């Protein structure tokens, strides 16, 4: 079991290293950051001055070594525009994103899994068909479109602005963007919950429990649910990792002051340190979430522990 955990951790570290390198390379090939900082018609010597100030005049390997060294020392660089550390900028925006992503995930779990379970228990009925139709719609609806429809309907029909403007971050204000962000996840949770529960309730041990006279509710909660939960835990884990990354579009549409908006702005203004840190942070949460899921399997499923 120690070998299992060690391997997973080793894999996580390698993934992070590859991510860091790719970000470093791609951001430098997607247009000269120094030229992006200078006005569009700036003469070459001004662009060169920017490059020097940002350390971009050094050879690439030196920049890379400096960057990696910085990461290990916990120094993730400073925003070229504001002089603030990338870590600070990220930390300032993180609470808004977590509130949005957390609420979205909560909506997805609290609505998606019960919907899927209801569909599974009423298999091949009208209710099942309706729930599944809704989950396909939820999954297929692009969230920017759903968000825009919601905002425009709110404004033009109900005279209410649903975007997160100056009052952003309030708990009431979080619902429209969270619903938008959580919609797709809700759809997939419902579908997974349905198929997983269906598979489980048809297993022999469920019939055995029924034959032993175990009441329905107990069968469902004590026998079926833990077994059906395994694929759902994976799915929730993955969604958890995507919380920070996934909100980029929703944050743009709703003007939500989170990490997603910071990322878009930083890419547009070629704020290298900030972009690098955000991507690294997203990769880190992804990797961490995967690792947690792997470890959680050990807790939920005795068969994996035994192996």
């Amino acid at each position, binding site marked *: 079991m120690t070998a299992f955990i060690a391997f997973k951790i080793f894999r996580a570290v390698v993934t992070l290293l590859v991510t860091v390198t790719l970000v470093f390379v791609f951001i430098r090939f997607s*247009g000269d950051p120094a030229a992006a900082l200078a006005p569009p018609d700036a*003469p070459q010597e*001004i662009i060169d001055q920017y490059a020097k100030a940002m350390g971009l005049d050094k050879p690439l390997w030196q920049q890379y070594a400096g960057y990696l060294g910085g990461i290990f020392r916990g120094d993730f660089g400073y925003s070229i525009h*504001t*002089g603030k550390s990338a870590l600070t900028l990220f930390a300032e925006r993180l609470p808004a994103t977590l509130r949005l992503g957390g609420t979205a995930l909560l909506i997805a779990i609290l609505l998606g899994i019960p919907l899927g379970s209801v569909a599974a228990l009423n298999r091949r009925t009208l209710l099942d068909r309706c729930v599944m139709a809704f989950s396909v719609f939820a999954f297929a609806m692009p969230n920017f479109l759903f968000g825009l429809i919601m905002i*425009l309907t*709110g404004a033009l029909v109900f005279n209410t602005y649903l975007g997160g403007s100056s009052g952003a971050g309030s708990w009431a204000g979080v619902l429209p963007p969270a619903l938008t962000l959580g919609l797709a996840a809700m759809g997939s949770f419902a579908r997974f919950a349905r198929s997983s529960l269906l598979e489980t309730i048809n297993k022999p041990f469920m019939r055995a429990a029924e034959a032993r006279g175990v009441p329905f509710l107990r069968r469902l909660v004590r026998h079926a649910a833990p077994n059906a939960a395994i694929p759902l835990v994976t799915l929730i884990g993955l969604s958890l990792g995507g919380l920070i990354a996934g909100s980029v579009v929703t944050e743009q549409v709703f003007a939500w002051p989170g990490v997603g*908006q910071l990322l*878009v*702005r930083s890419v547009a203004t070629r704020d290298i340190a900030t972009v690098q840190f955000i991507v690294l942070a997203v990769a880190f949460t992804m990797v961490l979430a995967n690792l947690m899921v792997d470890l959680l399997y050990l807790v939920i499923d005795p068969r994996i522990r035994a192996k």
Partner: protein
Amino acid sequence: MATLRTLALGGLSALAIAASATADDRTAITIAVDNLWPTMDPVIGISTTGARVHSNLFDTLVRRNRWEDPDGKSLVPWLAESWERTTPNVWTIQLREGVTFHDGHVMDAEDVAFSMSAERLWGPEPLARRGTRYARGIIRVEATGPLTVEVETELPDPNFIFRLVTPLGFVLPKHYYEAVGTDEFGQKPMGTGPYKLVSFDPSTSLVAEAYDGYWNGPVPASGLTFQIVPEFSTRFAGLAAGEFDVIVSVPADQVDTVRNTDGIRVMEKSIENYPMFAFNTLSTELLPDNPLTDANLRKAMVTAIDRKGIVEALWGDATFVPSPFNFPEYGDYFDPERKARFTYDPDRSREFLAKSEYDGQELIWHITRGFYPNYETAAEFMVEQWRDVGINVRAKIVDNFSLAYKRPFHMLNMSMSSEFSGDPYRPLWMDWGPLSSRTRASHKTWVPTDKFLELGEKFEAAQEFKARHAAYLELVEEWENVTPGMYLWRNVVSYATRDDLAWDPGNSAVTIFDKMYLE
């Protein structure tokens, strides 16, 4: 003494604020913008998104009067009360008395000298590099009295005062800037303007409150919030629902929809910036046999395009096609009768084409995505019109300017701003002359002809209107002879406001909410 004065004024303005706070029936205004520049230093932050804010926090020495004339052809003394050209190369500027920064500190000549100093703008490695071009040619800035500043230029510059309406003219508080440093100043800017910063977060909003010690009060709104709302539909929804008072950048194809919404007013303003493209007239390593080295092909391309038709289709009557360097903002230099020498004429285009050795090879046109409104749409029309006469152009849309500048390309999108000097000096000589990026940058597209250089020097040296005007006409003629680029239209910015807001920015992308512009 200075401290005493500061204290006294600070106390007075505090009283004024307290008094107005109790009887404040003004409303606060929220402006939904697509973006905010990450620093609010008015020179380091030179940009469209910064300019919407700067003049509300800061004042320039001189202002253009756009409240009476949308094109702002006349200059108005602002923080400078008067000016005089004491020798051909020296300007003496007299400052207004009793102007205070937002901390109550009195503005004086030292602040002005610092704002325009070598250290900040024109020395070897200036703090605010974006300002170098505005300060070009300045060799001395000196406070010669408490409210008197002398500026000396390398060459005689009869139009120097026009530069003081540009970001060069913003006055920053020396004491505060030096205390907090460049980065911090950009995050917590302080000036003499009508509004005083409350908070600034470059990825969400900038909030300011009325500065009741403002020298040109009363300040008409109790505060301003510039709120970043990247998505247009969301800005529109916020305006329709009453959350915002002003929104910027209504896409050209949405103007009618917004205009037809109850309670909303749309303003389309043509501004002093001209989207165009440059022909790459050079043969380079990556483009060894560039057919555009031949002026005949360039003229064939210019005469193949029905710019007027395209502009009417895309913009209605919001803008127009200028003839080269002949802009309404130039007062006496502007001649509405003077037409471009090469205009839409497909037959003439075919004649030019026949004279060239063009063999139908593909010409690549680099365009920066979404940078100039309607540019890509116009490009589609133009590519078809070129195809009609037998010229094969491919518009290659890229994500940013540094990708657009990457060779090889045959044509490059660009725009030219006409601010700066009250005459065509900037677009004609600074943007195409021997020191321009057209000539020197890694993405340079032409080498000025000897005649162009000779005429340009004559133009630069001319001190009187008559001589300068004559030199200007000759220089334009030479530019058209070479045809190193083509103008498309005068750029358009758009605003939508709630219809009871009496605010009009004039023909400008600069938004100011003081009593001159807002009732």
